């Protein structure tokens, strides 16, 4: 359905995927720094609350499942896009976005209740590092959602052209990667925290 694809263009598209991948890896190092900081400061509660006091594991599990669903759905959407099924693609993109938005809403509610209880990020080193690590992840998910909306609108307008497909692929890679980071947040922050 598209015009001819030159060798240079294909190479450029491969380079685009590799470049985005390398950028994601740098994000991995960013998270590693935040993880290291969290692990070093997790016991510095300054007389205040610790993980045991504030973490609700079933809530964290719920967040985990929701994010995982979003990641899965975006993958399915990509498979449908590769088959030029535009209407279905848009539906599954919207579904993935719904789960992502649900995740963010849950996270914001958790943060808000902690802050109103006086356990905000300025209360202790533990809380600073908790809010920053989990918040940075949440910020990435939020940016992903904005990107998703923009992509949705663009696909509606331009159809499933090769550039749209490539951009969608990058978005799904982004999402999968964020889910991988969350695995470690779930384990190291929440599960370890409640032990």
């Amino acid at each position, binding site marked *: 359905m598209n015009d001819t694809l030159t060798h240079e263009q294909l190479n450029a598209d491969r380079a685009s*995927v590799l470049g985005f991948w390398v950028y994601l890896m740098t994000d991995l190092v960013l998270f590693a720094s935040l993880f290291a900081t969290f692990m070093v400061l997790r016991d510095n509660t300054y007389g205040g609350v610790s993980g045991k006091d504030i973490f609700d594991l079933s809530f964290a599990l719920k967040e985990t499942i929701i994010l995982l669903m979003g990641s899965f759905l975006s993958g399915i959407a990509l498979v449908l896009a590769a088959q030029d099924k535009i209407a279905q693609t848009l539906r599954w993109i919207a579904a993935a976005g719904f789960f992502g938005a649900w995740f963010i809403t849950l996270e914001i509610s958790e943060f808000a209740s902690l802050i109103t209880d006086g356990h905000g990020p300025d209360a202790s080193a533990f809380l600073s590092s908790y809010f920053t690590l989990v918040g940075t992840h949440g910020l990435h998910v939020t940016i992903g959602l904005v990107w998703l909306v923009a992509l949705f609108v663009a696909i509606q307008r331009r159809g499933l052209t090769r550039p749209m497909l490539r951009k969608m692929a990058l978005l799904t890679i982004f999402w999968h990667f964020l889910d991988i980071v969350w695995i470690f947040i779930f384990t190291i922050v929440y599960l370890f925290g409640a032990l």
Partner: protein
Amino acid sequence: MNNQDYMREIGVLPDGPKESVRGYLIGLLLSLALSFGAYAFAVRHALSRSELMGLLIVLALSQFFVQSAYFLHIRRETVPGRDRLFAYCSFSIIVAIVVVGSLWVMTHLNARMMNPEEQMEYMEMH
């Protein structure tokens, strides 16, 4: 070139639609199982603390490999895939160095810090 081939050529969807969907489903089910499993073990302390932490790490790493394989399609065969695999492995080593290295250094530093009483004594003497 149709979109299906294009996605394979740029290394994003290396398999056909049926295999891809199957892959995503397997990835989803395994990830769900590993997440629930980790949660279940964490709330039901059958083991000692360090054994439990070890198990949870193993479960997390397993899910990491599952998602890398089934969601991110990391594999060796194609040239684009090889570059990404190389990057993935290099960065994982760096992440391990930064995290483990920092923890090693910081626990040593923290262990050798004077406690508040010792600090007061020292300051009074000097």
